[in-house]
């Protein structure tokens, strides 16, 4: 009674907002900043081996499946296009487009991860064979872990989209995982270019 009179609310006070950026988006931005640092550490090891030490890339006798990785890159980039379509659909109030888009994005991402695992089985060397192998599995595995996290987020978005949680006005639950998914694809372009092509 007294608390209600004084205007007290139940529970903790609202968090202070010191940024104009939406808190959930700001959280994802800061998370991505930390992710860039993690990838940067792995790329440092890669360039140290290849540039400073001047080691062969890949190691002598090994060959990287460039064509398969290239097709896999196209699959992952396609998933970003469908992710963009998903968000445009929810903004336009197109629920079928939202559901079809998020399921397609998930399936394309899952296909990428499956092909990546299949590549590990057939690539012909292991992380303990040489430094090049350690970096190859380290960088591609780190990225693969991010794809797995992204797929988990997409699965939640898919479930929520089928339950009708998103509207043209409120769709942060699609937007924030979308930012993460595009970031994962940006990192793959850099990983693919440096590891497989250059």
């Amino acid at each position, binding site marked *: 009674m007294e608390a209600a009179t004084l205007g007290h609310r139940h529970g903790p006070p609202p968090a202070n907002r010191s*940024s104009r*950026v939406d808190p959930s988006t700001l959280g994802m*931005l800061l998370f991505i900043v930390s992710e860039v640092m993690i990838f940067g550490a792995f790329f440092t090891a890669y360039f140290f081996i290849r540039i400073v030490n001047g080691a062969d890339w890949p190691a002598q006798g090994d060959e990287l499946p460039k064509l398969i990785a290239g097709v896999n890159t196209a699959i992952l980039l396609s998933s*970003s296009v469908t992710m963009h379509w998903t968000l445009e659909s929810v903004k336009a109030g197109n629920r079928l487009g939202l559901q079809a888009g998020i399921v397609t994005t998930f399936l394309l991402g899952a296909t990428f991860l499956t092909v990546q695992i299949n590549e590990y089985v057939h690539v012909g060397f292991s992380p303990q064979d040489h430094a090049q192998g350690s970096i190859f599995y380290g960088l591609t595995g780190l990225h693969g872990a991010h794809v797995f996290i992204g797929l988990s987020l997409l699965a939640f978005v898919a479930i929520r989209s089928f339950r009708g949680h998103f509207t043209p006005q409120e769709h942060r639950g*699609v937007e924030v995982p979308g*930012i993460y998914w595009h970031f994962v694809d940006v990192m793959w372009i850099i990983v693919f270019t440096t590891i497989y092509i*250059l």
Partner: protein
Amino acid sequence: VDHRLHDDLHPLKYLRSEAEAFRLLVRVAAVAAVVVAVVLVVRAL
């Protein structure tokens, strides 16, 4: 404090929304394609 707080996040302006992140992805893909093309041409010479 609010007036002095620098919160424009300029380096991250490309990740403030899904649409901006998608545009960043397209730009990175374009730059990567150019870099690969240049490197392959230089190696071929």
